């Protein structure tokens, strides 16, 4: 046996390297190494990062069989495991709500869990047990299709830095207090919430991602916010709510985030911001805002155009602008308010750092063309202006081009790219 020991290439590497190797294997292969030799029998049991999915077991057409064998697999793996588990990930559509998951979370709560990702199937949503709320060391929590019900005595996850709730059923005030009770929270992502009115108080928050039907979003205390991505869906009663609202959403949402570097807005975001928008002097300048991406901006709605203008004129260091239109060409051959651009448009501004502009889904409606003209006139260092016409507009393209060619450009370096697909 002595010879064999010398020849053994790998078993005597330091445990940290072995763990580094085993962590990079799918969990099933990692556990199988216990059959290699006596030295390898328990090497996998101290892994601190466990990630399970349906690839751990043999797949077959019988869903209940797969479900059962997956549950067995995970339970046995956890039972054989020794030491702390810092990262636990379960992503499978085969499991929904079942009592075994409660057991696993209880096990994890006793083993210093720091990062928990639970992504379950479409059936009955899993109701997260209360032992989750006693995981004191939790730094990252990601839940998909679960029910969250914090106990009344819950004081918050004091170490939580990242929270991602996707299709999670939770009471609105519970969500607000959850967010505000996590003092170290840096990254927040909420998706598929219904009719949520949200006040976000998170003094350390840097990254915010919202997607769903939000009635109202107020970034009450988020001074360190650096990147935002919002996709707002509209329903009838949200629209009604908007009609009746008297707040200036622009200020409520963007009023307290001076450190913003990147803003992305989808669907009804610009419309949301346009509600209650006054054109007064904005109390805040976005000195760090470098990238703005706004989708589904309707250039027929003067209010939305005003929102865009307000945003870009208060961002002196803007470098990249991407706007995607959503106009209805049939409606707007003759647009009203075209004289706005001559008379009321802010004329003393210049986009001193703007280098790249992408206009997509352009229908060629008058306001879109005026906007492009405006940008070209006011961007002395512009390098690229690319315009992609909307797929439905076929006849108007030539007219668009003719107009484009006639626009004055402030930047000698500016290239106009008309992208046809």
């Amino acid at each position, binding site marked *: *046996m002595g010879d*064999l*020991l010398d*020849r*053994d*290439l*790998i*078993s005597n*590497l*330091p445990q*940290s*390297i072995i763990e*580094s*190797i*085993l962590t*990079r*294997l*799918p969990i099933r*292969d990692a*556990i*199988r*190494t*216990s*059959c*290699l*030799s*006596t*030295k*390898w*029998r328990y090497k996998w049991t101290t892994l601190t990062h466990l990630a399970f999915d349906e690839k751990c077991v*043999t797949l077959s057409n019988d869903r209940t069989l797969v479900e059962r*064998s997956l549950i*067995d*697999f995970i339970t*046995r*793996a956890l039972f*054989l495991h020794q030491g702390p588990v810092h990262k636990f990930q379960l992503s499978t559509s085969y499991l929904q709500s079942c009592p075994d998951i409660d057991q696993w979370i209880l096990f994890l709560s006793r083993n210093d869990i720091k990062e928990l990702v639970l992504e379950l199937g479409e059936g009955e949503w899993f109701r997260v047990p209360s032992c989750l709320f006693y995981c004191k060391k939790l730094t990252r929590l990601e839940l998909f299709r679960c029910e969250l019900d914090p106990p009344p005595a819950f004081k918050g996850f004091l170490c939580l830095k990242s929270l991602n709730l996707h299709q999670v059923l939770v009471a609105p005030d519970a969500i607000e207090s959850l967010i505000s009770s996590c003092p170290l929270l840096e990254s927040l992502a909420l998706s598929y919430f219904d009719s949520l009115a949200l006040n976000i108080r998170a003094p350390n928050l840097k990254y915010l991602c919202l997607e769903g039907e939000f009635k109202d979003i107020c970034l009450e205390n988020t001074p360190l916010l650096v990147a935002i991505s919002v996709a707002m869906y509209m329903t009838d009663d949200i629209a009604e709510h908007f009609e009746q609202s008297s707040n200036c959403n622009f200020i409520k949402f963007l009023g307290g985030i001076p450190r913003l570097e990147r803003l992305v807005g989808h669907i009804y975001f610009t419309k949301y911001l346009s509600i209650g928008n006054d054109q007064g002097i904005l109390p805040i300048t976005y000195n760090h805002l470098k990238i703005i991406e706004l989708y589904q901006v309707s250039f027929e709605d003067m209010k939305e155009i005003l929102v865009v203008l307000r945003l870009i004129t208060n961002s002196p260091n803007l470098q990249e602008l991407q706007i995607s239109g959503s106009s209805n060409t049939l409606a707007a051959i003759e647009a009203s308010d075209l004289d706005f651009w001559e008379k009321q448009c802010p004329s003393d501004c210049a986009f001193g750092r703007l280098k790249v502009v992408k206009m997509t889904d352009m229908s060629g409606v008058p306001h879109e063309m005026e906007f492009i003209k405006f940008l070209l006139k006011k961007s002395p260092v512009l390098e690229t202006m690319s315009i992609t016409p909307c797929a439905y507009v076929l006849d108007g393209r030539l007219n668009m081009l003719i107009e484009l060619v006639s626009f004055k450009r402030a930047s000698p370096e500016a290239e106009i790219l008309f992208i046809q697909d």
Partner: protein
Amino acid sequence: MSEGDMAVIKPEMMKSYIWLQTADGSIQQVEQEVAMFCPMICQENIQKGMGSSKNHAISLPERVNTAMLSLIIDYCRFHQVPGRSNKECKAFDEKYIRMDTKKLCELTSAADSLQLKPLVDLTSRALARIIEGKTPEEIREIFHLPDDLTEEEKLEPLKNSTDDPRIRLLNRLYARKRRELQEREKLKNAELEEERSDDRSVDDLLSFINGEIGDSKGIKTSKNKKKNRRRKDQQKNTCLYEANEIHEESSNLKFACPSDEVNKFRASPSLTLKLQDLNDDSLEDMVEFDDGDIDDEIDPALKEKIDREVEDFARRLNSDWPQRIQEILALDMLEDIQGGNGSYKQNIPTSANGWNNFDQMLTGF
């Protein structure tokens, strides 16, 4: 601390070098910016001022020999240049990592001792890619791992267990016996004979156990039942039940039958029943069970038959025990009987030829 601070002041024409000494005594010099890419070398140089001359060369850890050092220097030389694009780095890494497994392991070890984390990550990833998806045999071969687990231990604890108690029984019997015999081997320092693998099905084996024992040779190749063959010579074959199941594919029940020479008392793995309670007819109680996990390929009718046969076998052992034990003692086949005579609750003779005793018992010589 900038590189300028660290460098010995030299005319701009001359590069500064760091002197490194590997465990095997050879000393070489490496460009400073390249060597400084390794945290350990950097630390030695800055904190202790080592490496500035041949006499004060930095002693590298034992795991870094000359060959490894040159590989590591190659890596550092490429990566320390600032402004490399991700694509370039990836392309270099992919090419760099192509080496035989032995070197890869040594390199991982060496990089770890120099605290060069990016290289450790790269090599770990490469090793993980090697291991992924391979069978244990393949992995053992690649890394020269000793196959020193017992069959029982090899049975992966995470597979779905089969519901067939008979198969589990055989698994455990085999596993236990093998383990005991291996310990004996070590004590006695006897040679191990080669195992032969036998592809007979379970029912064959059981008939073999039950009464058609007497097979003297050639179990390995034949799949037929060997009926009523008398042992002419002393060559006895013992059978092993080896659970060879690691993978998702359905396992085959394999039987390893080492040949065994009775008179020489050569230790060979053999199967005996560990009868803990011989008075008890129930098969389940007779032996300890561990979990087997072999897929069952036997149809129900045959299963019935086999179940009955196994039960018969148990009963037979029960009833014949005192007589057998006398015969066994007389033949001096046993090395020891654990627990003394008449104590049915003890292990039956666990000599190397234990299986053969059963043969004798059952055929009644």
